[in-house]
């Protein structure tokens, strides 16, 4: 146990160092690409708390992600000069409100019903954002300028692609460590026991509904943070990101990378985005990349239910 713990931290440091050094080596395009993988990875990681640890498949993560984005947009548009920390606070508040709403209703249901209701809820927010043109900009979304990287009262510079990458990396790493700590805490253990056997967990005396609501909210908060990061990176918020396809891709990242591992979803996001990039380079922009990716996805569900990371782990342990 002690030994594997040590290898874990060595591996963690190696990967972190590679990610820190990467933007210094990579050309501009791939630098942005790597940052994007980290952001999508954070979104996928946030939904792993539900899919992998609590056993609830959420098809509604686009709502949390999107509201994080629009929250950040509100802060950046309303307050001048645009302030990064305010954007984060607004985005988190937006995501928290939505996830409280979704959690309150959808945790009354289990399994498949949970998946369907989260999907329908995300679609509600999509319709609202899409049709409420005066506030949300409707189909066109909102564009804003990027805030400066700042530590209040001490330090403030404009973002470059390198510093943006390091900032995102720092946030994602912090989130990863927090989520890892949460899943290993007594709270995380209760979530896992809900996944394994819900009636028994209830019989022992845990308020299962409350745990589920907290799990959904937690997951929503981290998804919202991913939305804020994405808004800061791309300087716009659009209803497309609240659309159900984003939730679907989040689930795909999880399944491809390996559910219940936290790192797996990031690997999955990287794998998916790289494959997509590769396909569109080989066959042109118009190529329907989701067709081959869909086939890979189905094949992996049937033959590789542990995902890439689970497969690699089993192969290493052999």
């Amino acid at each position, binding site marked *: 146990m002690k030994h594997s713990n040590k290898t874990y931290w060595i591996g963690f440091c190696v990967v972190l160092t590679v990610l820190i050094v990467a933007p210094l080596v990579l050309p501009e395009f791939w630098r942005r690409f790597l940052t994007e993988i980290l952001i999508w990875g954070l979104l996928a990681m946030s939904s792993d708390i539900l899919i992998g640890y609590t056993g609830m498949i959420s098809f509604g993560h686009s709502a949390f992600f999107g509201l994080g984005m629009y929250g950040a947009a509100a802060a950046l548009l309303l307050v001048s000069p645009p302030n990064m920390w305010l954007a984060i606070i607004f985005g988190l508040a937006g995501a928290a409100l939505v996830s409280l709403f979704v959690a309150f*209703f959808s945790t009354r249901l289990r*399994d498949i019903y949970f998946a*369907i209701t989260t999907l329908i809820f995300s679609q509600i927010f999509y319709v609202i954002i899409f049709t409420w043109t005066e506030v949300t900009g409707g189909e066109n979304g909102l564009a804003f300028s990027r805030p400066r990287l700042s530590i209040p009262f001490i330090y403030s510079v404009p973002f470059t692609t390198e510093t943006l990458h390091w900032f995102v990396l720092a946030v994602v790493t912090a989130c990863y460590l927090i989520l890892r700590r949460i899943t290993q805490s007594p709270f995380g253990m209760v979530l896992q026991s809900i996944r394994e056997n819900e009636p028994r967990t209830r019989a022992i005396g845990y308020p299962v509904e409350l745990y589920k609501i907290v799990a959904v909210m937690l997951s929503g908060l981290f998804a919202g943070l991913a939305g804020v990061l994405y808004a800061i990176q791309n300087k716009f918020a659009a209803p497309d990101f609240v659309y159900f396809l984003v939730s*679907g891709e989040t689930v795909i990242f999880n399944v491809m990378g390996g559910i219940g591992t936290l790192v797996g979803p990031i690997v999955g996001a990287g794998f998916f985005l790289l494959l997509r990039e590769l396909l569109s380079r080989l066959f042109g922009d118009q190529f329907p990349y989701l067709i081959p990716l869909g086939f890979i*996805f189905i094949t992996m569900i*049937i033959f590789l239910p542990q995902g890439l990371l689970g497969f690699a782990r089993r192969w290493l342990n052999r």
Partner: protein
Amino acid sequence: MDAVTQFFQSIPYDQIIIQTMNGIVTGMILALVASGLTLIFGIMDVVNFAHGELFMLGAYIGVIVLGATGSFWLALILASLIVALLGGAMQIITLRPLIGRDPLTTILATFGISLILQNYALWQFGPSSRKINEPITAHFNLFYLEYPWYRLVIAALSAAIIGSFYLFLKHGKFGVWIRATTQDRVMAQAMGIPVPWVLTGVFAIGAGMAAASGVLFGPLVGVNHTMGLDWVLKAFIVVVVGGMGNLGGSIAAAIFISLLESYASIWVNPSQAVIVSFVVLILTLLFRPTGLFVPTPK
């Protein structure tokens, strides 16, 4: 007294009657889609995410056959058959290996299928929508509107398909097999019923029903690659409100929700009328999570 008469005069009766008819027509089509979905769920424990895409594919095949032969009814029958075969093949390839695994994996697998089909349609047919011509162009007068007979024909046809399916389930040999499999899969297998093939058959029937509703509905709106998602979402709401796996409940819920949406569209624009069905869903989840049209268990 004056205020009361004024209130009664301000109700747009003509619009309410028109919207009632519209609501029943869309409700019957929705019932056809949702009954396939609820059938597949009730018997196979599979939530078919690709159901909307089967609906869309049916409509596209309808467009092609109609273009080639010029006969709407032939298009309806061929589209149902082809999509039923396709559905059966899909079930054999992707869902059969997943039998016995967590039912949640079937959501993922059918979601993958829906992605493939939707993008295939976009790639093959392009983003602009196609038109299916109405086979019956006659109208009758309804207040200031010329109401097409075709809409009433759709409602009647949907009802006929659902009704004949119900009779088949009650009295047909394969129908009895299906019901036996629903009740007890292992026992049915022991009695010599080929359970895996029953499951494939059920999926094929559900797919065929979705395709039929796609062709029937095609003339009312254009046929495009995103039409599936709207319908599958509505069908999901219907199935949750009506009680999962409950055929009668789904039909009642389909008509109920469509009527509400039609009435709402008198006052707000149709894209916002969708919110009404979301509200119904939320209220159902709050007060009757097992479904509105399910008898209270004693």
